[in-house]
């Protein structure tokens, strides 16, 4: 019975995904709502991302320094940190925070609209709720994640610079020069694509669970919770797939 229910959910999810794609390529797009959602999502996540990225930069630098120092390669610290941050740490931290914050937000918001019949009210007045509520949020998360990743990278590298400065005095310009030298366009592009995929997954999963919520307030809680857990899982899976894929180009 559980296998059957899981298969039904996979089929249901696939149809939901197909519906999203159909609406993305079928005009009109909800440009105003996409920008509105992207702005709200970006602003809401900014503080948390700033804080965690800064700390992640400090912690990673602090933990890497002794190992590099034992090889006498402490000067490689900016290069090591920048590659780790741009390739993996930045997108992963941003993705996980957004999965928690935006995934739960989308799941709970749409879930509560579903159980209070607000989505039904939109549907019966021919207001095309799927496009307005789901597709706009999916596109907003897809657009906003890469921007947040760039921001998180910068803050992380700044945190790292602060830490590096406690080991050896170095100028910001010199530090940045070492960072730029060690990061390639492939790293940046791959990071952006990965971030966009994370955003797409968070939007789709949050949208799916919220839009199909049932059973009153319990259903809303379940939708938010499942959206977060599934989004986080999907981020690790996408990260792994992208890593394998990028190995062909490195």
């Amino acid at each position, binding site marked *: 019975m559980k296998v059957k229910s899981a298969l039904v959910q996979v089929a249901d999810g696939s149809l939901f995904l197909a519906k999203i794609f159909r609406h993305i390529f079928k005009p*009109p797009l909800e440009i105003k709502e996409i920008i509105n959602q992207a702005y709200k999502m970006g602003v809401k996540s900014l503080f948390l991302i700033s804080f965690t990225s800064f700390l992640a930069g400090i912690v990673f630098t602090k933990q890497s320094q002794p190992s590099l120092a034992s090889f006498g390669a402490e000067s490689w610290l900016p290069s090591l940190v920048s590659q780790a941050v741009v390739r993996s740490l930045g997108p992963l931290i941003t993705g996980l925070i957004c999965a928690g914050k935006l995934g739960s937000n989308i799941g709970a918001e749409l879930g509560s*609209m579903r159980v*209070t*019949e*607000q989505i*039904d*009210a*939109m*549907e*019966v*007045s*021919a*207001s*095309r709720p799927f496009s*307005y509520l789901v597709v706009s949020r999916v596109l907003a998360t897809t657009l906003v994640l890469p921007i947040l990743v760039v921001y998180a990278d910068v803050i992380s590298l700044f945190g790292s610079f602060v830490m590096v400065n406690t080991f050896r005095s170095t100028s910001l310009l010199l530090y940045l020069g070492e960072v730029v030298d060690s990061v390639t366009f492939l790293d940046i592009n791959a990071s952006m694509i990965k971030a966009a995929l994370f955003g797409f997954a968070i939007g789709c999963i949050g949208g799916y669970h919220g839009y199909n919520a049932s059973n009153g307030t319990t259903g809303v809680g379940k939708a938010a919770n499942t959206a977060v857990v599934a989004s986080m899982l999907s981020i690790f899976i996408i990260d792994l797939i992208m890593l394998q894929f990028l190995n062909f180009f490195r």
Partner: protein
Amino acid sequence: MSESEQDRKAVVIFDDVSKSFGDLVILDNLSLKLYDGENLVILGKSGAGKSVLIKCLVGLIKPDAGKITVLGRDMMNLTEEELNEVRVQIGFSFQGSALYDSMTIYENLAFPLRRTDSKIKEDEIEARVRERLEEVGLLKTINQVPAELSGGMKKRIGIARTLILNPKIMLYDEPTAGLDPETAADINDLILQVHKVHKTSAIIITHDLSCAHATADRIVGLFDGHNKIEGTYDALRNNPPEELMSFFDYIKI
């Protein structure tokens, strides 16, 4: 069916409609008609399938079998666009009002207009929103949010929102549920006013006999998935069928 009924144009036709959820049969080969310009009350106990019936009508729930015709269109064989063309002609007032709680009352009423007519100008939207709010006597709430309103006010705003698209058919799902008798009477009056002013045909789902009494041209009793009982309020009151005995006994008390 009387001769006069045969002469009248049916705007909604349920033809042997069935719907089950798992093993639970909700609608069992149900057939009924809503005639042009009439207020049809569907009476039944909680869980009788009254709400399922009107949700099938607007395509929110797909029946397992049967045919539903609305304004001459077969609802079972419509594309999404065609379904939306029919839906704009139907106003659905939800039991819990279903106001969009993140929007102001103005935005609640403006939203369906903007979504169904991309060319409509803002001043026209404002004029229509004000007109509808005035009609339900709640223009003063225009800048408030739903959380600031009472249950009765929400119901009135919900009705105003359904009227914004000038529907031909109104569907009221338990319009007086959870309201005090005075507010319920106000809602009944509003239903009659909408009927008179907008010349709508309406299906009113209720288990409240006073609502049925005040608003019905004709009553259909929905029991065990069938429309077992049919008649005017007075006819049913004077000679209540077994299923409706408890309803009328309650009124006597």
